[in-house]
Every structure is written in structure tokens, then in C-alpha cells.
């Protein structure tokens, strides 16, 4: 649900969550990102940091520099100047992704659970348009909405892994790309040679919340050559500007 006016929720005396809705929805997320952009363009005194999430903007602030009331008034002013927020992404990323079982250790298991074949699962996953909603969990872990309904799969009851860096994962109604090896309860259905987070690359993080994401199937040989280039610092995912 998309709230008509946002809710302001205290997270202690020095943080505030501005909540625009209670669901994972591109229109709600677009309002979050629009407020984030305006606050970053002209931050009120005392605002320390903003963190956009699916349906809320988290603000860290110093209450000895700006009161809650003044912060809320500033936000209401910024929201008031906006019309209907565009939910169109600013950029689209295409990530090369290898769905061969040697790079997709769970694809057979996930396909069986979903009543698919590994081939149809890979086709559905690579055929969808995703929206990057937010980062969370660990550096570079970016949650992608837009997973086809036929691939919605409950997460494992207990995490397993660690999954390899670059693993394309599915869990719940979402997909994501593992930025680093971590245990998760999600299913590994592919792997990209791109790195979501690399300190030896500028910028270290690639995609912005709100960007569109696609996967492009590649074979194992292509994976290995692209991975060598990615490890040398090159960005092997492609970015197109849409707006």
C-alpha cells in the first residue's frame, strides 16, 4: 500500500524513518528515492546520512543541531514541491550471467522445487526486467524486484553456503547478486563475473537504487574471460542511461 502522506517514525532521538508505504512497490520506492535525491541536493543542517530502503527513507540526524519538528517540516516542504514521482529508472545495467550448473550449484534443486527445468528457470530469470530497490545485508548486496512469479521460492529454513562472489540468487519474490561470499538461505541459480563491490575500482559500488537490471546468459568460457577482466578492474556489466 502507498500512503497518501508519509509516516514519520522515530528510531531513537537521532534517526527518523520516513515511510511511504508498506509493500515492495516501484511507485513507493520511487517516492523514497525522490525524497532522498532532494535531501542530498540540499541537506538541512544536522542531517548526517540517508539510507533509502524499499518503502522508507532512513535519516540519521543530530538532534542538538536540528529538532525533529524542523526536520519533519523540511521534509514536508520537499515532498510538497513534488508532483507524482516518476518510477522510471535512470539507468539500465546488463549483467553477463552464466547459468551452467558448475556456476549455478542450486539451479537443479530450485528448478525441481518450482516445477521447472534448469533451462526454463534460466530463461525466465534472464528474460525479466528487474528494479534495484535497495542495498542491505552486506556491502554491495543489492535487492532486485521483478522476479517472475513462476520463480518465487521460499528461502531455505537455515542459511547455507557461503555462496561464491557474483552468485545470482533467488529467494522469496526477489533476486540479488552476491557481492561477497556469505552464508544465505537463497538459491544460487547463476553467476556473474562482475563484482558488485570492489575497493580497487572507482566507484566501488556500481548500481544505484532505482536502476533497472537485466541478466544476459553467457557460456562458461565467456564467464572465465570476463571474470579475468573484472578482476583486473574493468567493469564488464553494461550501463545505459535511460533518462
Amino acid at each position, binding site marked *: 500500500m502507498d500512503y497518501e502522506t508519509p509516516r514519520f517514525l522515530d*528510531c531513537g532521538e537521532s534517526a527518523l524513518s520516513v515511510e511511504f508505504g508498506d509493500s515492495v512497490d516501484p511507485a513507493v520506492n520511487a517516492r523514497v528515492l525522490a525524497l532522498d535525491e532532494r535531501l542530498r541536493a540540499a541537506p538541512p543542517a544536522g542531517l548526517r546520512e540517508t539510507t533509502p530502503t524499499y518503502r522508507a527513507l532512513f535519516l540519521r540526524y543530530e538532534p542538538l543541531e536540528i529538532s525533529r519538528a524542523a526536520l519533519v517540516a523540511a521534509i514536508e516542504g520537499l515532498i510538497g514541491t513534488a508532483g507524482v514521482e516518476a518510477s522510471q529508472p535512470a539507468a539500465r545495467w546488463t549483467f553477463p550471467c552464466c547459468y551452467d550448473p558448475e556456476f549455478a550449484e542450486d539451479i537443479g534443486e530450485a528448478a525441481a522445487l518450482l516445477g521447472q527445468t534448469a533451462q526454463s528457470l534460466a530463461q525466465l530469470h534472464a528474460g525479466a526486467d528487474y528494479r534495484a530497490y535497495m542495498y*542491505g545485508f552486506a556491502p554491495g548486496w543489492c535487492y532486485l524486484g521483478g522476479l517472475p512469479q513462476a520463480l518465487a521460492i521460499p528461502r531455505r529454513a537455515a542459511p547455507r553456503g557461503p555462496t561464491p562472489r557474483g552468485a545470482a540468487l533467488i529467494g522469496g519474490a526477489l533476486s540479488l547478486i552476491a557481492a561477497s561470499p556469505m552464508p544465505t538461505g537463497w538459491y544460487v541459480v547463476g553467476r556473474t563475473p562482475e563484482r558488485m563491490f570492489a575497493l580497487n575500482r572507482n566507484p566501488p559500488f556500481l548500481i544505484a537504487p532505482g536502476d533497472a537490471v537485466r541478466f544476459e546468459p553467457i557460456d562458461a568460457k565467456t564467464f572465465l574471460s570476463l571474470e579475468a577482466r573484472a578482476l583486473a578492474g574493468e567493469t564488464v556489466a553494461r550501463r545505459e542511461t535511460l533518462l
Partner: protein
Amino acid sequence: MSARLLIEAAGPGVTIQDEGRFGHSRYGVTPAGPMDLGAYLAATRAAGADCAIEVSLGGMTLRAEGATLCVAVAGGDFDIRLEGRPMPPACLLPLAEGARLALRAGGSGAWCYVAVGGTLDLAPTLGSRATHARSGLGPKPLAAGDVLMLAEAAPPPLEPLALAAPWLASSDAPIRILLGPQADYFTPEEIEAFLMARWRIGARSDRMAYRLEGPAIRHRRGHDIVSDGVAMGAIQIPGDGAPLALMADRQPTGGYPKIATVIGADLGRLAQLRPGEDLSFRAVDWDQAVAARRAYFAAVEAGATRAPLGAAMSAESLLAENLVGGVVNARD
């Protein structure tokens, strides 16, 4: 030879911390930073340091090499010894070349900060020297045999001095919280039960979260929310009803309802509780939380005054001592 610190022994969980790695939470980066910000500020400001070693209950022993170093210690009531001689729990010391400083868990408190005056030769990662072990950002946790180089060393005091830091004293007063952001996921009866309960810090508590043992808190509207941002001190209630107080190494976002958030003035006091120790909560409103924050950081700012060991800590002697320079930004 340039000034160096040799780590002779370090228990688990001894890390480098600065105020935290801020500005990258939008990319999933945990801020980390000190568990007890007040103690961290007391130590770093007294020594003139831009980061500190955070010492856990496992303790640490270190030695100076190449120069006499200016070292400040502040935090819980640890057993601190300079060449075997006991020091007060908050102190500023000259650590002579070859001299050994040992910290062990003392009577109370879970974290202690050792700040070395000057600049440690540690490259920042994403703008910060804070260790976040789980994501591998910042320096690795310290271990025996590690050597920390000082790019610049601050002049040491002539003799050991006690630091007056009265807010570091432990207290049984309830930990103050602000309800929310998801208090509406719980019935008023469950919130009352949460506030009336005596809680115990669970054994599996760490820099990421303190587990609270007590009555199970039931949700009114389920335990899944669409993930949103998380503040340090947020108390989330997962599906099993056992509260988790999220600490310095929390993930920047979370998907369980948060019944309340510990106020900034009491975060250090919560952090200093050990596994097995008890606590209770008291709800305050935003204005009370801000008044407590103002008083707390004013005390931090004014509090780290120096006095010779053994001197009477009268108001007069405190006033006669140099106040530590600089004004604290009341940062969270």
C-alpha cells in the same frame, strides 16, 4: 627507529575503531565504530588520537618501541597495569620504550579503549579505519605479534594521570528507550510486559547484537516487515520473540519489527553490560531523550579532565587542571 606498538597478547574481539564508517549505508555498508562512544571519545581526546584500540573482555597486552608514547585508557572498569602497577580505570599514561601495558577484564564493563596520541599508520577504507570483521572492511582484528606503526606520535605526559570520567561508572538505572519505529506491531499489553521485564544479556552477544533473555514478546501483526533502516540500539523482535538489541556492527537494514530504540545517552551503558548481567528498560519521550543526550555529551566534553594519581578529585583540583582541548560534536 620510528615509534611502534607491539601487541603481545590480544583476546578475541580486539579491534581498531574510529567513530565509524558513515556515508555508505546506502550500499549496505555497516558503520561499525565504538560500542561505547563516550568512552571512546574520552580516550581519544585525552591522548590526541584519531582512532583507538577497542579491547574486549579477553584483554590485551602491548608494549611501546622506539619512543615514549602518550596512551589514554577509558571504558569499563578494567584491570589496567603499567609495568605491573595498577592504574585507575580511566587514565593518561606515558608508555616508555619497552614498557608493558596490560588490560584485563576487571570488576565490570565489557569494552575498554586504548588510544595512542598521534596518528596510527593505517590506511582508511571507505573513509574510515573502523574494523568490521564480518565484511572484512578496516584493519583485521588484532592478534599477538601485530605491530602498529605510528606515523606521528604525540608528546606523552610526564607521569600517569587519572581521567575523571564519571559517566563511565556503572549504574543499575533502567536503560532508557524511545518506543518505535514498529511499536504498533505489539499490543499495549506486550509493550507493558517488555517494560516490566527484567532482562539478561545472553551469552551469544557480540558487537553485532546483544541477545536479551526474558519473557517471549509476541507480535500482534506477524514478525515480517518490509526491510527498513536500522539505528544502533534498535531492539528488534524476531519470530521467536527474543529481543535483539542491535549494536555497532548491525546490518544497516533489517526485516524484523523494532519495538523500541535505546537513546544515545544510554547506548554506552548498555554496551558495557556483560553476558549474564541484568537490565530493565524505561520509556522516555523525544524531548527527554534529547535532554539526556545534551547532558551526556556535555559531560563527555567537560569530563575528561586530568589529575595526578592520588590527588584529591575535588572540584577545585578539576578546575585547576587543563581541560582537554576541542569541542565534542555530539555525534551518534
